[in-house]
């Protein structure tokens, strides 16, 4: 059975520099919606990408966007090349890595406002609730609207 917490633990144990965003961050703030993946925001230069490849190799990550062509993270992008976003399928579940959050900004911007939470014995950076609300507002999908209502209630303690 896939376990999204195992992905998070591996990233934390190996000191990958990232900020947890998306539905999983909403769960940490107390939202009740089930999310099917882990989303992180990270700065991915060549060194970061190599570190990520080494750390994630045990989870056999493949790119999942094109159902007909799903290269492994080791094979794509080629050594020395970079791509902006990584939409991966791993043995433990789906992991999306992006370098900016729509309506919020770059990794540096997201990181600067992030909250730090102790998780599994490590410090985990989580997108601030204000930035998470901004990103959910910009998405305009039904599932995001429910999470948005939950986050607004949690932030304003209208519960």
């Amino acid at each position, binding site marked *: 059975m896939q376990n999204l917490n195992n992905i998070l633990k591996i990233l934390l144990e190996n000191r990958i520099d990232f900020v947890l965003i998306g539905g999983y961050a909403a769960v940490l703030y107390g939202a*009740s919606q*089930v999310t099917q993946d882990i989303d992180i925001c990270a700065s991915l230069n060549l060194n970061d990408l190599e570190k990520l490849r080494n750390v994630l190799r045990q989870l056999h990550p493949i790119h999942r966007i094109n159902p007909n062509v799903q290269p492994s993270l080791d094979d794509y992008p080629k050594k020395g090349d970079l791509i902006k976003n990584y939409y991966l399928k791993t043995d433990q579940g789906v992991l999306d890595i992006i370098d900016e959050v729509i309506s919020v900004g770059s990794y540096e911007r997201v990181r600067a406002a992030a909250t730090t939470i102790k998780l599994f014995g490590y410090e985990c950076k989580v997108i601030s609730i204000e930035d998470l609300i901004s990103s959910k507002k910009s998405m305009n999908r039904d599932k995001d609207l429910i999470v948005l209502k939950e986050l607004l209630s949690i932030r304003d303690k209208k519960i």
Partner: protein
Amino acid sequence: MKVAQTKEQKKTDEIDCSLLEYNLTLTHEQRLENHQRAFELVQELIKARDLLNAKFK
């Protein structure tokens, strides 16, 4: 009657406030553990749906 009024007061559009209240009593790790259990249930339901769809194709 009093209970019903309280529930009504806490009812917000389409969200279950009692679930949020409960979640906020948990630690962050407990929230993730609960989410994982719900995630596994969803995965099982998806598998069952796919099996059912295959059966009727």
